[in-house]
C-alpha cells in the first residue's frame, strides 16, 4: 500500500479558500488546476500507520499513549482496535509554498488551499487501502488531535509512537507543531461490527465558534 496523491477535491480546496457558492471564479478554478498539477509533480506523499489493540482504559496496547477527551472516546465506542496514522506531502510542498509566497501571494493562498486538500487526499487514499486491508472489519472516519476536545498536544505523542521522524520524515517543533507543515495525524477506530459514527458533527468541533463554513450554512463534512 504505497501512499499516493491522486488529485485534489476542488470543493474542499474552495472551502479552505472561503469561496462560497458552486461556481468559483474562473481564474481561481484555473489556478487550482495549475496547483494540482504542480503538487502531483512536486509533492512526495508519505504515510505510516500501525494497528493497535485498544485496552479497556483507552490506552493503545504496548504504548503509553491514551487519546484524551470525550469526543475521541465516543468516536471509538465499540472499537477494539485502533489504527494510528500519519501522512505528509513532504518538505517539497513546504518549499513550493514558501517560494510561491515571494512570487505571488494571491497564488500562494490558492496553493495553500490546494495543498490542504492534497494531504487530505493522501489520507483518504490510505484509508481506502486500510479498509481493504483490514476487511471484513469496519473502520470509523479519521479523528485528529485538535478535533472536538482532543488536545492538539497529543499530535506529538502520536508522532513518537509512529516514529514519524524516522519513518516518514515528520518531526515536531519545540512548540509541538508538525514539520513539514502539510502533515496530518489521525486515529481510526476498527471494529468487527458496523456502527453509527459517533463524531457528533459541528458542535464537537474546536472550530465551531469561528468556522466560516458553518456560518455560511455549510459543513466540512467531518
Amino acid at each position, binding site marked *: 500500500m504505497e501512499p499516493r496523491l491522486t488529485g485534489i477535491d476542488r470543493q474542499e480546496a474552495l472551502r479552505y479558500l472561503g469561496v462560497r457558492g458552486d461556481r468559483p471564479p474562473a481564474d481561481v478554478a484555473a489556478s487550482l488546476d495549475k496547483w494540482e498539477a504542480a503538487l502531483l509533480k512536486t509533492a512526495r506523499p508519505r504515510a505510516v500507520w500501525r494497528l493497535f489493540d485498544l485496552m479497556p482504559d483507552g490506552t493503545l496496547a504496548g504504548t503509553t499513549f491514551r487519546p484524551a477527551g470525550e469526543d475521541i472516546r465516543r468516536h471509538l465506542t465499540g472499537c477494539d482496535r485502533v489504527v494510528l496514522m500519519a501522512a505528509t506531502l513532504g518538505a517539497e510542498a513546504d518549499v513550493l509554498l514558501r*517560494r510561491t509566497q515571494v512570487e505571488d501571494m494571491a497564488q500562494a493562498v490558492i496553493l495553500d488551499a490546494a495543498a490542504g486538500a492534497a494531504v487530505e487526499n493522501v489520507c483518504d487514499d490510505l484509508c481506502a487501502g486500510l479498509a481493504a486491508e483490514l476487511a471484513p472489519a469496519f473502520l470509523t472516519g479519521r479523528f485528529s488531535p485538535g478535533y472536538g476536545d482532543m488536545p492538539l498536544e497529543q499530535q506529538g505523542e502520536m508522532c513518537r509512537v509512529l516514529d514519524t521522524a524516522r519513518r516518514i520524515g515528520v*518531526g515536531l517543533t519545540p512548540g509541538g507543531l508538525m514539520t513539514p507543515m502539510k502533515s496530518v495525524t489521525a486515529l481510526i477506530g476498527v471494529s468487527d461490527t458496523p456502527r453509527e459514527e459517533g463524531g457528533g458533527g459541528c458542535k464537537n468541533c474546536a472550530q465551531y465558534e469561528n468556522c466560516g463554513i458553518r456560518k455560511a450554512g455549510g459543513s466540512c463534512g467531518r
Partner: protein
Amino acid sequence: MEDKFIILDGAMGTMLQAAGLPVGQSPEVWNATDPEKVAAVHRQYVDAGTRLVCSNTFGANRHKLAGCGYSPAELIAAGIQLAKKAVGPGVKVALDVGPIGQLLAPLGTLSFEEAYDIFQEMVTAGEAAGADLVFFETMSDLYELKAGVLAAKENTRLPVWASMTFEASGRTFLGTTVPAMALTLGGLGVDAMGFNCSLGPEELMPLVEELARWTDKPIILKPNAGLPDPATGKYHTTAIDFAKAMAPAAELGVGAVGGCCGTTPDFIRAVTDVFKDKTPAVRSKADRRGVCSAARTVELDGVRVIGERINPTGKKRFQQALREGDMDYIMARAVEQQDAGADILDVNVGLPGLDEPAMMAKVVRAVQSVSDLPVQIDSSDPAAVEAGLRAVNGRAIVNSVNGERAVLDAILPLCKKYGAAVVGLTMDKNGIPPTAEGRFAIAERILDAALGYGIPKEDVYIDCLTLTVSAQQDQAAETLKAVRMVREKLGLHTVLGVSNISFGLPAREHVTVSFLTQALAAGLDLPILNPNQAAVMDAVAAYQVLSGEDKDSAAYIERFAAAQETKMVSAPEADMTLDTAIAKGMKAETAALTEKALDAMGEMDVVNTLLIPALDKVGDRYERGEIFLPQLINAANAACEGFEAVKKRIARRGGEAVSRGKIVLATVQGDIHDIGKNIVRVVLENYGYTVIDLGRDVAPETVVEAAIREDVRLVGLSALMTTTVPAMEKTIRALRASGHDCKVMVGGAVLTEEYAMAIGADYYSRDAKQSADIARLVLG
C-alpha cells in the same frame, strides 16, 4: 580504510527494548542506570564479528534528553566508557550521533548555530571520554549534518564518518540527493560516508553504485532488515537473507558494513561470514563532479548560467532592500532568475556601512529557502566569504581570488576547508594585464596556489575579465583569446561576467549577445549574466544546440514552444479606469493610469481620492462575498504599483516618502504557520502602510523591542494553532508591561473576537481586509 571490510554493529534501540527498556524512554539513560545491559549488547555484537561498535549515544543531545535528569556529557561519557570496557582491545568505539530531533530553519525553527552548539557539546564529550571517531547516522538533513561535521572537525581531532537515510527515490526525506551528499560531505572532508536505515540492502544497492561515482571516500552501508510490516512495525527478513543481499556491496566500493533497524547480532554474524574472506574492491576514481545545493547538483559538462542579479551595485531598489533587511525582495530576485533559467546564483551583498559577513549569511539562507540552485559567494572580504560558506547548504563557488599572494592566502584556505570551488580573476596588484598572455600567466599562478592548498584542479574556475568595449576596444579580443588559452592549455572551467562589455553603448543587447556567443565558442562555460534578458538566454539556448549539448534540440524546442503560448496578451482597453485596473489586479495598467493621474493631480490627492477608494470598493466586494481572498490580494498588489508610482514621483522632486504609518507584524513564538501573517503584510503594504515584518516563531521580547525601536502605534500578531495562542497572550502582556503605547490586533484560525479580548488584544482581525480597516482606525 583497510584491506579488509570493517564489520560494524546492528540495531541498539530494539536490542535494549528486548532487554526491558520501555518504549518511549531515552535508551541513553541506561548508560547511567543499567550500563551492564548496554555493555551486554556491545559484547554480543563483538562476539558476532563487529570490529567497530557505535556507542549508545544516538539521541544523547540536549534537546532529546531534556527532562531525563542527565546531561549529554554524562550519558556520553558513560556510554563511551562502558563500550570501551565491553569491547576490549582491537575493537574501536565510535561516538554515535543521530539527528537532533528538530528541523532546522526554514522548515523548522532550529538555527544552524544552535545545531552546531548541540553537536559541539556531544563531540567534545565523546573525545574526552575516549571515542575513536565520530559517526553521524540516520541524518536526513544535509544542513544539520554540515553543522555536525563542522562541530566535530573544529572541536575535536577525531575522524568523522557520516551516513544519511535515503528513500528508494534517491532522496532523503528533506530532499537531499546522493550527489549533493557526496559533494558536500566530501568537500567538508569527512573520512567516510554512506547510508543507513530506511531501506533494506537490495533497495540501497543502486544508491551505493551512484555514490561511488561521486566520491572516492570509503563507503559505509548499514541497511535495515528489509521493510517493516506496517501494521506491527516488525521486520521479517532473516539474517541469512540479509547477509546474502549485502554481498554485492563488496564489489561496489563499500568499506564498512553493518545493520540498522531490525538487525541483531545474528545478522551481523551472517554478514561477518559473507565478508570475512573478501577484500574491498579496488575502485575506479569518481568521475562526476559539480556544485550543489542539498536538492540540486549542477555538473559542469556544458554551459551553466550564473545569475548576477543578487547584487546591489548600481541598483537603488536592491540597496534599499539590503538596508531594510527586506529579504522578500531579495528572495523574489532568486526565484525570478531560477524561473528565467539560471543554473547558479551569484550572491553579492557588499554595500558600504553594512555588516557584510552577517548580511552574507542572512541572504544566502534566505535565497536557499526559496531556490534550490547552488550558490556563488561573491565577496572579496574573507570574513564575508567564510560567513557565506558556513551558511550555505551544499557545495558553493567562491567569487573570487586574484593573483595577489595575500588574497590567495586569505581565501584559498577557506575554499579548502568548506570544499568550495573558486573563481580566480586574472589580475593582481599591477592591475589587469593588457595581453591574453599576461592574464594566462596569472591564471597559471592561481592554479598553482590552489593546488598548493589541496584544492583539486577541477574546482578552479578562471575569469579572464571583460572590459568595457566602448572604452577599451582592443581588449575584447584579448579577453576572448585568454579564455581560449585557459580552456585549451590549462583545461580549466572559465567564468566571465559578460554584461559589462556593452556598457555605455546604445542597444547594448546586441553587443552583449555577440560577445557572449564568441566567448562561448572560445570555451566559456560559466557566463555570469542577467538571465531575465530573454535575448541573452536565447543565445545560450542556441549555443547549446550548436555545441551538441542540447540533445535533439529538445530544450530549445521546449523553450520556444512555451514562448509562443505566452505571446497572447490582450491590449489594454483605452477607456480603462484606475478602479477597473485595480479591481482586476492589472499591475502595469494601474501603474500607467496612476502616472497619468499624477500629471494632473497632487500626489496625496491621487492616493486619497483614487487609489484608496478603488481599494475600498474591492474590499467591500470581498466583504459581500462577491470576490475572494486571491482576488483581494491581486487587487492590493495592483494598487501597490500605483503607490510605487506615487513614491517615485515624490522621490523625483525630493519630497518626503509617503507612508500611512508603520506596523509591526509577527507570527508568535512557537508558531511556524506564517501564511496568514504574510497575507496581512501584503495587503497592509498595498494599502500604503510600512510593515516591519518580524517573521515567524518570534519571541515576545523581539516584538517589544521592535515596537519601541520603530515607535509603532500598531502591532499585529498571528497564531494559527490553539497551542500557540498562549504565546500570543504572553506577547501582549510583554507589550503592555513595556509601557510602550500601542494598539494590538490579533488574528488566526482558532481565534474569536471573545478570545482575542480575553487575552488582552485591542482588536480582533477576522481577515486581511479587516486588518486594513483596523490600521485605518488606528493610524488613519
